[in-house]
């Protein structure tokens, strides 16, 4: 076992059930509200807070800067990094930059295509993919980069970073085998933890966890907080690999508007409680409703 490089790393290594949160940087420079939410509802309650990287390809403030602001406020960040916007030079450079700013947890993602976002005319990059990005981190840790000198020898870094490297998986997709094959590669490439795409079906999740038992990697089950029945239906229609069961949608439609946050916290908390025995943690994606996190944790019995 390598020496833990972050609080998240240490907690998972110690076998604790770990909860992580998530914030999305604002579109603009007004970071105040976002930081306030993180300080008021996430700090001290979750082990670390993911910061999304130009989520859904909608241009916004960068993940690395927000991670640094979280660090300054005593909140441990998980730096999300997508392959959509930077080539291998920029990705490696940003990894070194993140490290010198004190960022240790990095989550490697492919990234939603630019066609999904608000700059569909942009040129997508995808020079690396999530597997090769993880491998790149491992390479940087070993003291070299992806390049080489004129003799073909790997370049040497003057000072190497050390990360706690994470990746994502979609457990409840209709064609799960290719996902598992890719997850195996991610772990082989150096992934040390997994945060999943949203899961609402504990039975399906248990089945998935059995299929990846051999990987021996801590898995944090992803929960996107359901804010309304409409949102749940939208996710079923539009978000790949996410299926919100009908009873949950009914529960949300039955809730009076002023009670929605309470019901949302009950559902998310119950899901965490149900899946707790199957995995090593939960990743809560609140999409701006950070104030429901204390309620979720209470309902989950954490």
């Amino acid at each position, binding site marked *: 076992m390598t020496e833990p490089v972050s609080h998240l790393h240490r907690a998972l290594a110690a076998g604790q059930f770990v909860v992580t949160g998530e914030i999305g940087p604002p579109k603009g420079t007004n970071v105040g509200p976002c930081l306030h939410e993180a300080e008021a509802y996430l700090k001290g309650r979750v082990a670390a807070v993911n910061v999304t990287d130009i989520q859904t390809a909608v241009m916004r403030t960068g993940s690395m800067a927000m991670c640094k602001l979280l660090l300054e406020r005593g909140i441990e960040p998980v730096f999300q990094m997508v392959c959509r916007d930077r080539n291998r030079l920029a990705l490696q450079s940003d990894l070194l930059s993140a490290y010198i700013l004190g960022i240790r947890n990095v989550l490697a993602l492919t990234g939603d295509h630019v*066609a999904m976002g608000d700059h569909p005319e942009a040129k997508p990059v995808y020079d690396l993919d999530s597997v*090769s990005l993880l491998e790149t981190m491992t390479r940087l840790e070993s003291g070299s980069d992806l390049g080489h000198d004129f003799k073909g020898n790997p370049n040497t870094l003057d000072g190497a970073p050390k990360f706690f490297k994470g990746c994502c998986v979609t457990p409840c997709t209709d064609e799960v085998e*290719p996902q598992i094959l890719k997850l195996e590669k991610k772990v082989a490439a150096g992934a040390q933890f997994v945060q999943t*795409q949203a899961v609402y079906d504990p039975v399906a999740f248990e089945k998935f966890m059995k299929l990846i038992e051999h990987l021996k990697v801590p898995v944090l089950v992803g929960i996107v907080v359901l804010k309304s029945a409409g949102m749940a239906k939208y996710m079923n229609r539009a978000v790949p690999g996410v299926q919100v069961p009908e009873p949950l949608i009914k529960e949300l439609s039955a809730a009076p508007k002023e009670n929605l946050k309470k019901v949302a916290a009950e559902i998310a908390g119950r899901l965490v409680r149900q899946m707790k025995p199957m995995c090593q943690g939960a990743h809560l994606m609140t999409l701006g409703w950070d104030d429901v996190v204390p309620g979720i944790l209470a309902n989950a019995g954490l």
Partner: protein
Amino acid sequence: MIVASPKPVTELKEIVAAHDKILFVGCGTCVTVCLAGGEREVGIYSYAMRMARRLAGRPIDIEQVTIERQCENEFIKDLAPAVERNQAVLSFACGAGVQALAERFLNRPVYAALNTQFLGILEDQAVWTEKCLGCGDCMLAQFGGICPVTRCAKRLLNGPCGGSTEECCEIDKDRPCAWQVIYKRLKGIGQLDRLEQIVPPKDWRPAWHGGARKIIRQEHRV
């Protein structure tokens, strides 16, 4: 083959607005097969252009010719007298053909009538799909003959992203996820083990990233 599609007549009208005597040149190879720039299309677009210009009160004189291949000097050279007779050339070839004409006939403007699209196949009647990006370092052997560099919207080399729905690409519901196709294909031919190997980042040097490429085959030079 190279697949192209014609520009709208309104755009072509703008492009040739300065001229009243022009040569339309079709190409008898790829763009004829994909119904974009052969003799037939040159005829149709000449007719449409004449009508548009007549309606605008500025008639245009169009001479039509279609040659076997606009990408080879051997076929281009005979165009010289016709080019000389006209103020400009509207080429119905792919981008390569247009440039071959432009480089040969230095004293006449040469315009493109088509949008050159991709290297692809005729998938169904009047349906063409892209299959090859011409990356210069073919990886098809690894992927069961299905190219993720071309057919995955994210050009992923190590498996699907989390974005495909019911086997369709995240960004186009009419396009199958290349990785689902690769997975099924490799499973079908008993080569799923190929997906277990981590594919390193692609070396883009053989591709277009260093500017226009050139191939010299010494054994064929005399």
